[in-house]
């Protein structure tokens, strides 16, 4: 972990604090109301706000989780720095691809 990675990780963390609180509120709302898939999608389909919200969330978590995972790999596994870098970049890309696909899935009309 160096200063560059540190700043990226702390900034995405700080960014995600309000995003997470909204997400938790969404989870609670949906489960209290017993929303079905149709109910949820009716709210998200065609919504630019939800697209921006979750698009930002996915981007931030892909960066944040990758950097965090890198630390765990270098400290707790025999993997060296180079191998860990490759592994977490791959993981970050996986999260980004799957995440944006999910955003598209719920937002596309």
């Amino acid at each position, binding site marked *: 972990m160096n200063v560059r990675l540190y700043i990226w990780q*702390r900034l995405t*963390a*700080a960014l995600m*604090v309000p995003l*997470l609180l909204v997400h*938790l509120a969404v*989870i*609670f709302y949906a*489960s*209290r109301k017993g929303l*079905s*898939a*149709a109910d949820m*999608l009716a709210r998200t389909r065609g919504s630019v706000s939800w697209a921006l919200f979750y698009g930002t969330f*996915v981007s931030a*978590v892909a960066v944040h*989780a990758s950097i*965090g*995972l890198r630390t*765990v790999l270098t400290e707790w596994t025999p993997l060296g720095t180079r191998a860990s870098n490759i592994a977490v970049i791959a*993981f970050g890309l*996986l*999260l980004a691809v*799957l*995440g944006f*696909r*999910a955003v*598209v*899935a*719920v937002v*596309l009309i």
Partner: protein
Amino acid sequence: MSLLARRTSPLWLAALVHRLSGLALATFLPFHFLTLGLAIAGESRLEGFLRWTDQPLVKLSEGLLVGLLAIHLLGGLRLLALENLAWREGQTRLALAAVAAAMVVGFVFLASVF
């Protein structure tokens, strides 16, 4: 004995919980995204999956995940505060309060789904 001898301070455990919850969430996320991606195929696929998650065991796991999310958030706030605000005493109490808060969040979620 000696491996755990001095690793019982609440702040050390807070760091461990933060790391383990992060790993759990990182493992969960790809599946979460894949599930939501079912909506591409239309509402019925996603609806089918959501009905599957109505099982008590799945709901319990969801409660656990929500709790892990809350504890990871609070652990992260601990670090952001420690690194950017003036040093404060009583961090142990705060760490324990954070655990309690995360458990409350998890339980409230479970109460709302059962």
